[in-house]
């Protein structure tokens, strides 16, 4: 049973990430909310994961557009580490952080009357770190039901944007949002062991604070539903349907005539289908793979949208409780 939960928690790790696109969208892919459910007391979970994303398609509203699109492509290679620890049987603390090996975009802006030039930008470095606390409001292992609520914050390792030769890199290739954020989540889990099926729901909300340049990324609401089924021993197939809504960004530099700070051409709604496969090695280490398939997209204005994204993770649970050895009192020497 624990193995199943570990496998699914690892998969959920990916799912709790927001699928940010790069150019023409906001923010950078944050680390992750680590485990969606709570851990057993004195249990330590370690997760390492890798994510790759590629984009070369623009959307305007809910349809693809090829009109006046400057970008050739955009992609990143990202890796993260997450730790979770069960403080009590109901309370779990999680920390995570990640590193961009590269976050690259290449495009061709047009200059009237002259030749087209090419621009290639690459940022790299640590993304924001995260700290979360989760509390199991209702946990009934016998009935395989869990209802958990959590809250936490994300912090930037630096508030200064990355620059080269005193010139700031574009937001789209910045490894960090350079701003603080707070988040909260609700998680529900119900299993039907007789048919080997499990249902999860996850709702997560994130609020971003303005950065040092008075720019504020929009709020993000994520709603996910998962169905999992054990297909053969040690293998689990999981299907996730995820809705991601992002509100408009705000720019507080007083650049809009009506006094509004809202950027009209920002924000989006995405509906994503994620098939996932998990495998347990020797019952201790767990490996998971997922692939994101966007089903529906709506963008305010014209924005770049992810073409594909995949992730791989490895996780392991450690039992840190000091088990007392059983001693038969009658056999003790007197």
């Amino acid at each position, binding site marked *: 049973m624990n193995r199943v939960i570990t496998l699914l928690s690892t998969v959920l790790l990916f799912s709790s990430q927001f699928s940010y696109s790069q150019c023409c969208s906001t923010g950078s892919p944050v680390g992750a909310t680590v485990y969606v459910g709570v851990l057993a007391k004195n249990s330590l979970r370690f997760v390492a994961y890798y994510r790759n994303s590629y984009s070369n398609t623009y959307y305007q509203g809910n349809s693809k557009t090829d009109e006046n699109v400057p970008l050739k492509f955009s992609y990143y290679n990202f890796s993260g580490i997450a730790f979770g620890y069960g403080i009590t049987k109901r309370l779990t603390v999680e920390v995570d952080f990640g590193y961009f090996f590269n976050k690259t975009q290449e495009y061709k802006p047009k200059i009237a009357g002259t030749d087209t030039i090419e621009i290639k930008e690459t940022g790299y470095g640590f993304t924001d770190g995260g700290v979360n606390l989760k509390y199991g409001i209702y946990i009934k292992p016998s009935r395989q039901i869990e209802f958990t609520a959590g809250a936490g914050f994300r912090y930037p390792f630096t508030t200064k944007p990355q620059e080269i030769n005193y010139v700031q890199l574009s937001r789209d290739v910045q490894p960090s949002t350079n701003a603080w954020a707070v988040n909260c989540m609700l998680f529900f889990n119900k299993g039907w062991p007789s048919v080997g099926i499990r249902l999860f729901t996850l709702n997560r909300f994130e609020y971003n604070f303005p950065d040092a340049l008075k720019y504020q990324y929009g709020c993000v609401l994520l709603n996910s539903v998962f169905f999992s089924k054990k297909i053969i021993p040690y293998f689990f197939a999981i299907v996730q349907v995820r809705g991601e809504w992002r509100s408009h960004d705000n720019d507080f*530099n007083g650049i809009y005539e009506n006094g509004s700070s809202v950027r009209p051409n920002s924000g989006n709604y995405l509906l994503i289908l994620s098939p996932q496969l998990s495998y347990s090695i020797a019952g201790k280490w767990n490996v998971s793979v997922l692939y994101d398939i966007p089903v529906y997209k709506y963008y305010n204005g014209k924005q770049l949208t992810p073409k594909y994204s995949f992730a791989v993770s490895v996780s392991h649970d450690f039992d840190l409780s000091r088990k007392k050895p059983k001693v038969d009192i009658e056999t003790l020497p007197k």
Partner: protein
Amino acid sequence: MKRYIVILFSVFLIVAVSCSKKSDSAGSSTPLVFTNLNASDSTMAVNGLISFSATASGDGLTYHWTASYGSFVGSGASVKWTVCHADNFTVTCEVKDANGNSASKTRIIRVHE
């Protein structure tokens, strides 16, 4: 004892001379003046390119460029800037001199489809 007094006096003299030289050099340094931040246009279409040039005087100037969104091409006193989506954006140049003084100017660029 006399020798120590001579050494001490010599050290004092060296420090005093070196300080006076420094203040002389500080006195003769050019004050930082950020005259202008020019933009080739105040509006452009998405996927366009605008040139910026900063005019400033002072010692050992460095030009720091930031924007609320978009990408720069080049560095130094003149750069180009582009952005791949519409809305209003700010482009800021902060000039710093060798003495730690700084001055900045900002331009608002309206980007349309």
